[in-house]
């Protein structure tokens, strides 16, 4: 029985806290890569982004059309459910508000779908009102494949598993459909400030 076992002298990596962090988080140097599958490498001439589901007219953009849309510089803190955080990360992307302009829907939920099999679900109101982007650049450079390039969803006010890498579209749904991690014990909403990491939090 190894309950209460402690490894003498082990402290783990120095976990630097900061008053600006949500509960249980620590600052990290570098940008950890957590990968649940092979890194997709979709050529840009095959890439598209779509808004589909409970909409009168689905919308789709090629990479060129997407990059011609108005875009923004974004500076935000990001928080991973595995407890690392980075403050003041900088991105460039297209606001989801821009992509949803003119879209009529009765849906209240969104399912982000991606190259590979990753999905994540969010309330529609959490990806609108200036709270979410489709980001194609990080730290002044085109987004690298291992960090979700060519484009990823960016929703910094929720735990970072919701910022789906290799995003290819948003499906608007009337019913909430739990995504990849949400169906495996991770919190359905994921607010870092209320430490909503797992079911029942």
């Amino acid at each position: 029985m190894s309950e209460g076992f402690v490894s003498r002298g082990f402290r783990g990596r120095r976990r630097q806290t900061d008053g600006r962090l949500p509960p249980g988080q620590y600052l990290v140097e570098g940008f950890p890569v957590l990968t649940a599958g092979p890194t997709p490498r979709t050529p840009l001439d095959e890439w598209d982004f779509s808004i589909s589901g409970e909409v009168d007219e689905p919308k789709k953009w090629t990479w060129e059309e997407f990059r011609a849309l108005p875009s923004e510089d974004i500076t935000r803190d990001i928080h991973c459910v595995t407890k690392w955080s980075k403050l003041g990360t900088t991105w460039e992307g297209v606001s989801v508000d821009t992509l949803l302009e003119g879209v009529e829907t009765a849906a209240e939920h969104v399912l982000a779908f991606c190259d590979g099999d990753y999905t994540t679900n969010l309330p529609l109101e959490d990806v609108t009102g200036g709270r979410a982007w489709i980001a194609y650049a990080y730290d002044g450079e085109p987004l690298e494949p291992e960090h979700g390039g060519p484009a990823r969803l960016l929703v910094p006010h929720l735990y970072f598993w919701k910022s789906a890498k290799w995003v290819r579209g948003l499906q608007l749904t009337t019913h909430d459909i739990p995504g990849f991690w949400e169906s495996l014990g991770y919190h359905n909403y994921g607010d870092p400030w209320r430490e909503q990491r797992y079911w029942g939090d």
Partner: protein
Amino acid sequence: MDERRLDGNAVGGLLGEVFTFEVTMAEAACDRCGTVAHVGETMAYVTDIGTVVRCASCDNALIRIAQNPRGHFLDLRGVSYLRF
């Protein structure tokens, strides 16, 4: 090629706490492409958020595992059967 992926061996410890047979030697049938392979021959992606075991032929997620303070989650939906 993904630098971070490991062989199915890497989940032998985690799944060894669940099953009473030596898991890397068990055969798993992929429910997407039908490939039958030993779990030790599959691809394992192990991270702090969770572990995904994928078919070496088609990358289908065979087994997904996550742990949190309230328990373990094990999703075997990608496997048609495990033979041991």
